[in-house]
């Protein structure tokens, strides 16, 4: 196991902790985007390029965007 993989694994663990422990859903969306990017880099470094390609777009763009749109709808409805 290379040092890079070990560092990325620890970063992924820390990122997952951040996402679950940040209470504000707006900040959590940003943390989720970072977490998805970290996962994609981990998959790429660990020689699993197909999984990395799926995770890049899905984890870093699609999921945070849908969270933000859901939050925009909820915040707007609270007026």
């Amino acid at each position, binding site marked *: 196991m290379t040092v890079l993989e070990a560092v990325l694994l620890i970063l992924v663990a820390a990122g997952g902790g951040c996402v679950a422990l940040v209470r504000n859903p707006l900040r959590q969306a940003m943390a989720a985007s970072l977490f998805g990017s970290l996962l994609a880099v981990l998959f790429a470094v660990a020689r699993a*390029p*197909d999984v990395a*390609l*799926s995770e890049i*777009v*899905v984890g870093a*763009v*699609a999921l945070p*965007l*849908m969270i933000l*749109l*859901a939050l*925009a*709808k909820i*915040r*707007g*409805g609270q*007026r």
Partner: protein
Amino acid sequence: MSIAGRRAAFLAGAAVLVALLTWGFAGLLPGRPAGPTPRVGDLLASASGPDRHVVDPVALVGLDARSLDALVAAFTVVAAVAGTTLVLRARPDEWAGHALDFATGRRVPPTSDAVRVLGLGLTPPTVLFGLYLVTHGQLSPGGGFQGGVVLAAGVLLIYLAGEFEDLHGLYGDRALERGLAAGAGGTVAIGFLGLAAGPAFLANALPLGRTGDVLSGGTIPLLDVVLGLGIAVGFVALLTTFLHQAIVLRPLGARR
């Protein structure tokens, strides 16, 4: 149970859970008695060249050896998109107005030119890359799922570049329904092709071609294209549904 009590109970159970999971997962590692034998993976990887004339063993596994997984995934996407569109449909107490910055109550400010140029400039390379991933799935890392989400990201860039109206015009468009149906139904149709011409449903039944060509691998590139279409259209449908819900719909009685 109070929040603190719930947290204490969970932490006690979670400690045991993490210990058990780590011990159990360690037994799954290759080399252990319960670990996976690498023979299946090695066999498929070595068979990908001579047997099916493809270069990327992941395409062989995902779309030929385990093609039923791809079929189930396509139908899961269809079901989830249908469910989301159904849940977020316009209710009788809502109406669709102009795009409004709902959270602050003002009209959406015009996007800066830099963002527009960057977004619109990045869209063609992204779409091209997505098409490349979809069509070359059997030759390099990629495939239907990967190329499909990249294609959807290319369409999403239009919204991120500020051209919201162009993307929102796709909401409820019949072409989205047809694209999604083509993705799932096309997989089933290719499956019946395998049934008619070969031994089993979704068997690889088309001529295999030469290794390294774009048109090699029989039904694998066909399944890639069909799945890529279904996934891309499914994601665009999801995004336009959320956009419509968040930016356009508003309850009766809200100020214009």
